[in-house]
């Protein structure tokens, strides 16, 4: 069992690296930072299931790899199902000290992979599913996905996406799984804590990691951490957990219920080329939706009788 005492500083993170040097991620890649942190949080007693996504390219081509843990690469839509097979086989073999992790992009989670993920969650498959969300099909050259936010440029939404992003954590909450969390590599300790908590819980755990992508979001490669922080500080990305159906905001998002404390969303949007064509009307719309989201978070956080799908250990 994982100790309940969590680290206070990034210096306490393991020095071991399982995402090795020589990987071929873009400079400033948010998902690569996320993957490195994932290994630091969970160690190397894990089996990784990776569908078609940036992370099937990042380790580099055969006969080399920069991942020092066992990895099964699998077809785009199959992460949830293939992880189910790994979990079942481990159980059959009596192996119970290995954590199975699905590591999939937003396209493989929100869109083409949602069925297999939903099935795995409904079956209570004992694994951690991390969706590293760079809000587009990054690997194929930035096409819109169900995770692309309103107004964002992609190669298939050249004048900006006209629809809103799916609310994936709440879709997962409706599956009554024991643990759901959002995270961002700009808050590494928060992400690490959540992974460790997830590891100690039996059942399906879903962690939604907002992973800024300089290539797709059109910002300077040195600004990945800053962009992630701004996403959280503006409230556009709220850090929260839903544990057995109970919603809780995490620092620093728990301090942002008061609208005044949230930084103006323009600070986040103006740094990214993908939002260049947003009009003032668009920004106003996004602001309105954001405020509505926060009203909902506020209600959920303060309501003990949560109106989320409650869940208990079976």
């Amino acid at each position, binding site marked *: 069992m994982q100790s309940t005492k969590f680290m206070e500083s990034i210096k306490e993170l393991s020095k071991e690296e399982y995402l090795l040097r020589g990987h071929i991620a873009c400079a400033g890649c948010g998902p690569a930072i996320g993957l490195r942190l994932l290994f630091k949080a969970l160690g190397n007693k894990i089996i990784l299931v990776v569908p078609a996504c940036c992370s099937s390219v990042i380790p580099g081509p055969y*006969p080399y*790899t920069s991942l020092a843990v066992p990895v099964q690469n699998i077809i785009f839509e199959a992460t949830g199902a293939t992880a189910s097979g790994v979990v079942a086989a481990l159980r059959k073999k009596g192996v119970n000290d290995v954590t199975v992790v699905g590591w999939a992009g937003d396209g493989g989670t929100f869109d083409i992979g949602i*069925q297999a993920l939903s099935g795995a969650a409904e079956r209570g498959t004992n694994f951690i599913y991390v969706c590293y969300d760079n809000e587009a099909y990054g690997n194929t050259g930035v096409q819109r996905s169900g995770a692309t936010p309103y107004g964002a440029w992609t190669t298939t939404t050249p004048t900006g996406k006209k629809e809103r992003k799916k609310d994936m954590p709440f879709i997962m909450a409706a599956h009554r799984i024991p643990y759901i969390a959002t995270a961002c590599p700009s808050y590494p300790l928060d992400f690490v804590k959540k992974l460790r908590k997830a590891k100690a819980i039996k059942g399906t755990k879903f962690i939604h990691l907002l992973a800024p992508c300089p290539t797709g979001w059109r910002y300077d490669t040195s600004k990945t951490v800053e962009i992630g922080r701004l996403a959280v500080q503006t409230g556009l990305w709220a850090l929260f957990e839903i544990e057995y159906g109970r919603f809780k905001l995490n620092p620093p998002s728990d301090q942002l219920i008061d609208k005044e404390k949230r930084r103006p969303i323009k600070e986040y949007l103006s740094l990214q080329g993908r939002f260049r064509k947003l009009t003032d009307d668009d920004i106003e719309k996004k602001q309105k939706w954001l405020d509505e989201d926060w009203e909902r978070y506020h209600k959920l956080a303060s309501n003990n009788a949560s109106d989320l799908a409650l869940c208990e250990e079976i």
Partner: protein
Amino acid sequence: MAQTVIDTANHIAAYAAKAARVQVVAAYPITPQTSIVERIAELVESGEFDAEYIRVESEHSAMAACMGAAATGVRTFTATASHGLVLMHEPLHWASGSRFPIVMPVVNRALGPGWNIWADYNDSMSQRDTGWIQFYCADNQEVFDTIIQAYKLCENERVLLPAMICLEAFILSHTYLPVKIPDQEKIDEFLPPYKPKWFLDVNNPLSHANIVSPEWYMEFRYMMQEAMENAKQLIPEIDKEYGKYFGFEHGGLIDKYECEDADLILLTMGTIGSEAKITVDNLRKEGLKVGSARVRVFRPFPKEEIRKLAENTQMFAIIDRGISFGMEGFLAEETKSSLCNQKDQPLIAGFIAGLGGRDVTFKTIEKIARKSAEWMRRGRVEKETVWVDLRK
């Protein structure tokens, strides 16, 4: 003691999975495969069959879950039919390319539209290029025996490919026939536990199915082709060995009947092959030198055996329960292609019969044989592909 049961091919397939000591089953129901997964559920939940059973949410996920389990180093099983199989098309390629020895009964059923749940080979035939070994069975005993044989074959290091065990909807899937189930001890001796050379292991981390550049991709494909050639050699050997253990053989690659002196050979697959034997008996009584050759393995295709048959006969009448639109029947295509560049080729006539479950009895086959014999005597095939009993 071996036990004789009278049961449907579907239930027999479930018993074969149990007898093979399958460790993980992942499956999704579809007519007419359902009674396989239902029986497996009963066997698993009663504790008789010690397997993990994943009730997935689609056939695509069934194959994806089987791959996850196989990659973790256990013996895996699924079963499907028709639309379920074609939904699996993508993972089928990934499973063979990953060299996972998954065994999967396919209950051959027509594809829509319109909805049709009856026997037809277009489902599995349209998967013939996925890198899966394909067996086609003619009775329930063969279904049982072939599943056991297939694990032995597929897990052989010289093969490491998955296999489909094809059986026709209702004609076999729901028909009760006597089947001899050998002693478990002897099955265990014939089929030892699966010991993969590699699997997902935290003590020996490896990355499987990485990106492969043009520098290497062809070599991996060539290895699959070699594995198919090895399978072609091993299938008859394993069938013979099985025969020695349990008393049943099924003809290796091609189940031949009265072919030695035959002028006309009926080339068939599946249950049409069993019916053809009756036709052969009847026509032999009239003095017509007919034989039957039931192609039991479609991938790898038994080219060499087809050539041998062709050397000593005047004509092939080929019956296909499927059609490659814009060309002809699948077996007819492969047979003709096998004979390319051979001297003294026999006449070949193709017959499309039994699509969507239409009956093909020994009488239907008799008509086919008589028409073919007539063309054989004239030395000329009047129609390359005949649609049998087609409504005008």
